[in-house]
């Protein structure tokens, strides 16, 4: 057995109520590591042969919660959630912060595979080896804060009752869905605490389709043995020292970007990306600090950075709204993208989105899209059921978000996510509204524009990503560039937090992996072999897609039309992405990553990587 792993995975079939333990060979763990990489492998092996017919929201989909060997050791706890994505119909490795991964490993499991679909709402309770499917009638329908409060209490009482001798029980770590996930909204998250979310991929909807409200885990064992504890300690100290010196993330979190990225690099979505520039000092992070922060440093297991801050509105009509302070992405997507430039309104929006169990990025994307259609008169007040989503009106957007979560009226269409909603509205209105959808392959583009060329600089960043519009996993050349998704896959597979890696020597991550597992891994070996294999698996499943949508690289390996429109304002006014350049760079990237001219993984490349069955499956696309 490889060090750093608990050595077994839990598999729960909610249809048959069968609970068992499964293991993966050392070879598989060495090649795919954990988290995102292992998710791609499991999904391909189990569902690959029928991938196109698997409904992401049906019982045949698998919902995976996977740690990696570095989880718990590398500072900053995370876990990776995956499955067939109801957004892209491919595979997304969606990670979320918190203690869940650490608790799970301490309970003796490296991950959980959830299959089937429960008859009625349930939650999964894990205490070391005691695993139980429990009735969730009491918590079904509850918002985020109530779910956490009720479940924390119930689980602690249960532990106390069953193990009374042990003293005060701490709360278990909980992953759960809000009402949006229950209603299979494709922009729903798997959440931790109140506001931590595995957003990209839409796995809250998958959890809802399985009628799985939550998983609560308490592990009382130690983290697994590592190969070289002295080296782990020393490397940990390096990571911590580096983070303690990183004032930007420590003090401000990414929230400093809400003003900076708009004003300086002009790459922040404003009013559904009609602009990417603003100079609204009202939206500066100093305003957030002084007006709404109530806790300056908030972190998850072992985190030296604590980029999170707790926020609460203290004055005005949104008084009492609580959330973690909107990070850059949510300042953008629940702020500027909706024409909101006021910290209180932004915090209020984020708290509403948290409570409903929605993804701030994907929901902010679809809300902005709907508001632009309103601005253009394509959708009317009547279509919105009496709401007028005018730019800057947080209350109107909050009402619309609630309709999305409950799939009410137009909310039922918007609940399908921006791309699917665009197709439906085009059909209903007889107008092509897809050009207003700022997404790639079913996934709303993260809040980093590429038109100014000063932020995310590659014209093909999102175009060629195996996770579509996901800003945490973008294509980049050369493939070993630290920004490239080839490297980010390592974060998501070792399952660590990217934000504790900034400014560290590039090989440290692989040294850390070596110290934990005892297996030597070089950056080159990772990029050229292991990451490449995972990329090909993800690309294959993305292109096979289905059942409702398929991606043709000729059409869909492209930017949202908006990115080809010149920026209308700011220091980079007039700049746009050139289509010809995208085509040229895309070809170059295809060549490097081993895809043919049409963007399909090449036979010889797949066979060299030992993916013969993937090669066979892709024959029909060639």
């Amino acid at each position, binding site marked *: 057995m490889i060090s750093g792993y608990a050595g077994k995975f839990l598999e729960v079939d909610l249809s048959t109520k069968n609970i068992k333990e499964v293991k993966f060979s050392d070879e598989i763990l060495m090649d795919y590591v954990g988290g995102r990489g292992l998710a791609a492998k499991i999904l391909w092996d189990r569902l690959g042969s029928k991938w196109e017919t698997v409904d992401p929201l049906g019982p045949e989909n698998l919902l995976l919660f996977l740690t990696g060997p570095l989880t718990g050791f590398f500072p900053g706890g995370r876990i990776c959630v995956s499955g067939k994505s109801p957004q892209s119909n491919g595979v997304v490795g969606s990670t979320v912060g918190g203690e869940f991964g650490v608790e799970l490993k301490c309970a003796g499991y490296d991950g959980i595979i959830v299959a089937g679909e429960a008859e009625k709402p349930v939650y999964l309770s894990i205490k070391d080896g005691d695993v139980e499917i429990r009735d969730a009638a009491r918590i079904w329908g509850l918002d985020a804060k109530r779910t956490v409060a009720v479940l924390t209490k119930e689980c602690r009482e249960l532990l106390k009752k069953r193990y009374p001798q042990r003293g005060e029980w701490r709360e278990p770590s909980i992953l759960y869905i809000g009402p949006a996930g229950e209603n299979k909204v494709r922009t729903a998250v798997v959440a931790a605490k109140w506001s931590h979310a595995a957003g990209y991929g839409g796995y809250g909807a998958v959890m809802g389709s399985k009628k799985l409200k939550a998983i609560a885990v308490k592990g009382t*064992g*130690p983290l697994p043995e590592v190969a070289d504890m002295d080296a782990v300690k020393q490397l940990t100290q390096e990571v*911590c020292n580096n983070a303690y010196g990183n004032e930007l993330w420590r003090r401000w979190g990414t929230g400093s970007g809400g003003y900076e990225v708009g004003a300086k690099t002009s790459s922040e979505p404003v009013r559904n990306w009609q602009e990417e520039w603003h100079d609204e000092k009202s939206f500066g992070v100093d305003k957030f600090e002084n007006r709404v922060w109530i806790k300056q440093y908030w972190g998850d297991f072992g985190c030296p950075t604590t980029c999170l801050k707790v926020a609460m509105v203290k004055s005005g009509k949104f008084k009492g709204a609580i959330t973690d302070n909107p990070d850059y992405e949510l300042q953008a997507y629940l702020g500027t993208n909706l024409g909101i430039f006021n910290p209180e309104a932004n915090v209020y929006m984020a708290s509403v989105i948290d409570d409903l169990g929605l993804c701030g990025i994907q929901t902010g994307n679809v809300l902005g899209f709907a508001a632009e259609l309103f601005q253009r008169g394509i959708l009317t007040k009547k279509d919105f059921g009496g709401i007028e989503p005018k730019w800057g009106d947080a209350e109107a957007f909050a009402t619309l978000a609630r309709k999305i979560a409950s799939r009410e009226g137009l909310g039922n269409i918007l609940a399908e996510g921006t791309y699917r909603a665009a197709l439906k509205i085009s059909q209903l209105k007889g107008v092509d509204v897809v050009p207003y959808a700022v997404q790639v392959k079913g996934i709303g583009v993260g809040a980093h524009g590429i038109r100014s060329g000063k932020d995310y600089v590659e014209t093909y960043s999102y175009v060629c990503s195996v996770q579509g519009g996901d800003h945490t996993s973008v294509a980049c050349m050369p493939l070993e560039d630290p920004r490239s998704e080839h490297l980010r896959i390592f974060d998501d597979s070792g399952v660590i937090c990217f934000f504790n890696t900034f400014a560290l020597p590039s090989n440290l991550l692989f040294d850390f992996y070596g110290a934990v597992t005892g297996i030597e891994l070089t950056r080159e070996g990772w990029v050229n072999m292991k990451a490449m294999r995972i990329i090909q698996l993800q690309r294959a499943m993305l292109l096979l897609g289905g059942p409702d949508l398929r991606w043709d690289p000729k059409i869909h390996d492209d930017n949202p039309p908006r990115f080809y429109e010149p920026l209308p304002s700011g220091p980079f006014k007039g700049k746009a992405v050139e289509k010809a350049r995208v085509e040229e760079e895309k070809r170059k990237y295809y060549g490097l990553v081993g895809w043919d001219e049409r963007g399909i993984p090449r036979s010889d490349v797949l066979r060299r990587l030992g993916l013969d069955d993937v090669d066979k499956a892709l024959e029909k696309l060639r």
Partner: protein
Amino acid sequence: MAEAEKREAIWIARDLSKCSGCRRCEIACSLFHEKRIWPEASRIRVFMLAPGVEFPHFCAQCEDYPCVEVCPTKALSVSKETGAVLVDANTCIGCGKCIEVCPGKVPHMHPKENKVLICDLCGGDPQCVKVCQEGLWNVLRVVPRRFHPYRLYARTPEEIAKDLAVKLYGEEGERLL
């Protein structure tokens, strides 16, 4: 005066509402005592009965040491040097009487061995304080053991969480637990 008498006993002063919830104290504590990262075997445990309301829960070394008094096997004693409660693992029978009598319900059982876990101040150089200081959280600080209202710090996780929730969230805090 002898060397030992000159050295003052210590106490860990605590500023709970500053806790970031990073749990580096648990990592340091369990590495020191168990040579493993083992959150549930840590003598200091961060509770999070509501998100945002994280705080470390560990022995306050009350003046009257009710846990030491009640121990039926005399497994618990007070360190003359540090003032910490020391557990003799060989004598402890895991009866839980010290937990019952503790006003803060602080002691808890070792997850694998039949013995109770109580902060021993690492023999006078507490590891949790080191990492808390290093991270500039300053929730924990070593001070001389002089006149502190020790028993006020020996409170149950529920009691602490309820107050801290209100401190942090105001009126909303009443509803969040």
